[in-house]
Structure formats: structure tokens, C-alpha cells
């Protein structure tokens, strides 16, 4: 988790391309949204939507990989996050969708692939439902369309934890829930450093506002069939915050979708397995642009490392179970 803070206006030379890594602000109502565009001005571009406690610098590894593969990449801090404005009392999920619409408009006429993790996955799903015609593909990651009791109660507990214990306590809850022992073990004596940047950029009231935008959450499931773009759903094998069943709802309701299970991964696999995830994003976009993508409701298993083979989940077994149970005969 190295936090590399760039200058307000930096530049990088990647793969022979001169790319501006700009950090301008987008105006939305009376608020400013900080975003960053890297990579070529034409051709496909990925727009990445943050999770709840994330900030755009955490996508740095994706920027490098995607730009090297001639993709444009847009990252931004949601309203209430990082260096974007933090509305004092109210932030609606509609606001995030509207910001995303403005951001995607600024990219002009090029194939846009939209990916979002967790809270950002909800925003990406909502965007695809409302403005699907403006994107070429969708990648919901570690996300959900419903708030079943476990997730609802976990969300409430997190909100209470935030209120009573501050951002640090919320981080203390999320780190062990969302990351593997393999990732945490070497960092055990540096966890305060790992958490510090997230603690610095996240304000309690702003996180609380983001969380409270779920108080009146209506399930998206009845609208998922309106998503007509190719959709690659990514879910960590061991994600117990948003487990397989929540992604299954997406797979079964989004027509041209496939579910890819990331081996040995937890909820925050975009952080823990950045190289693998970035590789999957590139492969998905290429398949869509070359018209090789076929979702078909498939269930697949991602490789352990970037560049490996994606294999089908064994057809005779139930992918919703944690033990090798055979599918019931139907």
C-alpha cells in the first residue's frame, strides 16, 4: 500500500505515449469532484469507481497496467471522498450517478468500460441501468443489488462502529474482513501506516453520509435486466461481506453476463490482486471490442496470476457452495 502522491499536474511517458496525468475538478451543482485521466485520448477507456473508504490513488497499479495496454483510464473521488467536496448533510446515490454521467460525457466518443467495486459497484450498476447506451461494457466487483439481512446488519454495525469509534475503528473492522492473511501478515507491524492515508482523507461525517445513502435503498434486481451491455462480474472466492449469492443475483438477471470467481480472494481483491484484476479488465474489454465476448450466464474461475487461463467452473458442481456439492438435479 505505497501511497505515491503526485503533483497536481504531473506527466508520464508510458510505452512511447506521452500521457498527461491531470488532476482537474469537475463541477457538479455547487460541488467539485476531483478526477484524473491518464492514457491515450482515443480508443477504449476504463472508468473506475471507488469503494466506500477508497480514494483514487489506490487505483495507481491499474493506471500503469491499463495505460501500458493503450487504454485510457479515469479515476475519481466520489462526492464525500478524498479531495472531492464533501456535502455536509445529504449525498444521494443519484448524485454519484449524475457525476459519473458528466465524467463519461467528458471522454467523448470512445468505447467506455465501467468498473466499480463494492459501493462503487452499486453506482456502476445504477449507471448501467440508466445510461447503458453510453458504455461498451460493465464490470461490477464485490457488489450487490439487494440488501439481505446479513449485509444490512453488517452495514449497520459498520455505521455504528464509525460513529462510536471513528474512521480508525471502521478500518480496523474492514481490514481483516476484506483482506487475506497472506496480505496482512507482512504488514502486521505497519498497520498504522497502512491505515493512515485512508484515515487522513476520509472524514467521519462524509463517510456517514455515504453510508446513510443506503437507508432508503431499493433493490436493483428488478431493473438488472435493463443492462444490455456485456458484463463481467467479479467475486472473490472468500468474500463474506458480499458473498457469492449476491453476485449470483447479478449473473442471473443481467442478460449478457458471466461470473468470474477470483481464487483465494476476499472483498478487497482489487487492492490485493491488482495485477490479476487489471489483466482481467484488459482481456474483457478486448473480447468485447473484438466481438469475442460471450457472457451467457457462465460461471468461470480466474487464474491465480495475471495472464493465466480462465477456466469454466465444473458444470456438475454448485458454485454457490463452499464444499464440492453436486448441483441438485433439475
Amino acid at each position, binding site marked *: 500500500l505505497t501511497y505515491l502522491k503526485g503533483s497536481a499536474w504531473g506527466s508520464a511517458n508510458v510505452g512511447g505515449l506521452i500521457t498527461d496525468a491531470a488532476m482537474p475538478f469537475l463541477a457538479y451543482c*455547487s460541488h467539485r469532484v*476531483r478526477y484524473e485521466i491518464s492514457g491515450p485520448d482515443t480508443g477504449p477507456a476504463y472508468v473506475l469507481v471507488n469503494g466506500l473508504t477508497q480514494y483514487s490513488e489506490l487505483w495507481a497499479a491499474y493506471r500503469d497496467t491499463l495505460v501500458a495496454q493503450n487504454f485510457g483510464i479515469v479515476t475519481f473521488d466520489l462526492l464525500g471522498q478524498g*479531495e472531492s467536496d464533501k*456535502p*455536509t*448533510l*445529504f449525498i444521494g446515490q443519484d448524485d454519484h450517478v449524475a457525476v459519473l454521467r458528466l465524467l463519461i460525457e467528458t471522454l467523448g466518443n470512445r468505447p467506455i468500460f465501467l468498473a466499480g467495486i463494492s459501493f462503487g459497484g452499486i453506482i456502476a450498476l445504477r449507471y448501467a441501468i440508466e445510461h447503458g447506451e453510453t458504455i461498451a461494457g460493465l464490470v461490477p466487483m464485490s457488489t450487490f443489488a439487494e440488501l439481505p439481512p446479513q449485509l444490512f446488519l453488517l452495514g449497520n454495525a459498520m455505521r455504528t462502529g464509525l*460513529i*462510536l469509534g*471513528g474512521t480508525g475503528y471502521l478500518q480496523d473492522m474492514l481490514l481483516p474482513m476484506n483482506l487475506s492473511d497472506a496480505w496482512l501478515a507482512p504488514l502486521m507491524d505497519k498497520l498504522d*501506516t497502512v491505515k*493512515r492515508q485512508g*484515515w*487522513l482523507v476520509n*472524514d*467521519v*461525517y462524509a463517510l*456517514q453520509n455515504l453510508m*446513510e445513502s443506503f437507508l432508503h435503498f431499493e433493490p436493483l434486481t428488478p431493473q438488472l435486466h435493463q443492462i444490455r451491455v456485456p458484463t463481467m462480474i467479479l467475486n472473490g472466492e472468500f468474500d463474506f461481506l458480499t458473498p457469492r449469492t449476491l453476485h449470483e443475483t447479478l449473473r442471473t438477471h443481467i442478460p449478457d453476463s458471466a461470473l468470474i470467481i477470483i481464487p483465494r480472494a476476499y472483498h478487497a481483491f482489487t487492492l490485493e490482486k491488482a495485477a490479476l484484476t487489471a489483466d482481467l479488465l484488459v482481456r474483457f474489454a478486448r473480447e468485447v471490442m473484438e466481438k469475442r465476448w460471450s457472457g451467457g450466464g457462465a460461471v468461470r474461475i480466474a487464474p491465480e496470476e495475471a495472464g493465466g487461463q480462465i477456466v469454466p467452473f465444473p458444470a456438475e458442481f454448485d458454485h454457490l457452495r463452499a464444499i464440492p456439492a453436486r448441483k441438485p438435479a433439475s
Partner: protein
Amino acid sequence: MNQFLGPLDQSGRVPPRQQTRVAAFLISAHGALARRLAFALPARMKAAWHTELNAQLHQEAETVSLLMRATFWALDPELLLLVPSWEAAWLPKPVPEIADLTMASTIDTAALGHAVHAAIRPAALLPDKASGDDPFVMALRRIEFENGRLMQAQILFLKGQDLLPFRDAVNAAVEQRHAQVRELWDAMLKGVGVQREGRS
């Protein structure tokens, strides 16, 4: 300009001039809230929420008391000009579109409380190496931690059902108080060589 307080001395202590300026600002803001709460609190409680008002009053008083004792004070003549300007900023402001003066005053008090508790993050000014044994460092951490809890009363009130018909007016009042508090806080910090990230 630095993003954090400092440079720290060898024992990890914030320079006395910075301690003095930061503490004076916080005492002014929390002291103003304490005065407003003391004025609003009835001698005999009649509603359950009066107990929260009482708790808030004494928490604000504790913040003031803590800073007075934990700060390593230095002579700072500029405070003769700065403190009156801060005190003037905390005075009650009308809330447009709210005709009921009592309600407007309560909304403004809550808006100021929300801004002071939410927009000011004193612990976020401390550099990584600040000594946890230093009373000023501990005080800033404690104040920020308690602020996160204190603001819940303001959030409940400002986002509550009773004020929903006035949502836009309430929201505007809170946004304005936040902008005002941030501006004064940032200006004060600039005066001691600190500029928060993303603020110019």
C-alpha cells in the same frame, strides 16, 4: 508550507507558537458553542433531548479546559486581532426562509456545532512522528475523537423529520457554516505555516 504541524522538536513536540495558535482557535470555537448551549439549556429539563444538550455543554467545556492545560503556550500578539475576528464569526446568524426565530437560532447553533465538530480535524494535522506522550498531541487526538460522537446530535437534529420541510434552508445553513469554519481554520493554519492538502 507544510501539510502537518511542525517541525517537531526532538521529543516529538509541536512548536509552542503552533500549539498556541491552534489551541486559541479551538478554545474560541468550542467556547462559543459552550456559551450557546448554556444559554439554550433550561434550568429544569423537560424533554429527553435536554440531557444530550447538557452532555454537549459539558463536553465543550471539557475541550476548552483540556486545551488550556495541555497547551504549551507562547506569547502571540497577533491573537489580539485574531480572537475578536473569530468570536465575531461564531455569533448567531439568521437562517433565511426560517421565520421562527427560535427555530432559526437552534438550527444555526446546530449548524455551527456540526461545522466545528466535522470540518475541523485537529488530529489530522499531527505528523506521523508526533509523540503520543505529549499532552497537546493527546488533547488534539481526544478532541477529534470526541467530535465524531458529539456531531451525532447535530446530525440527528439537522437530518430529522421535523426539519425535512426546510431541508434546503437547513442544508444551506450548514454548508455556509462549514465554509466559514474551514476558511477561518485554513487561514489560521496558514499563519503558522501549515496548509492542508487540497486547500490553496
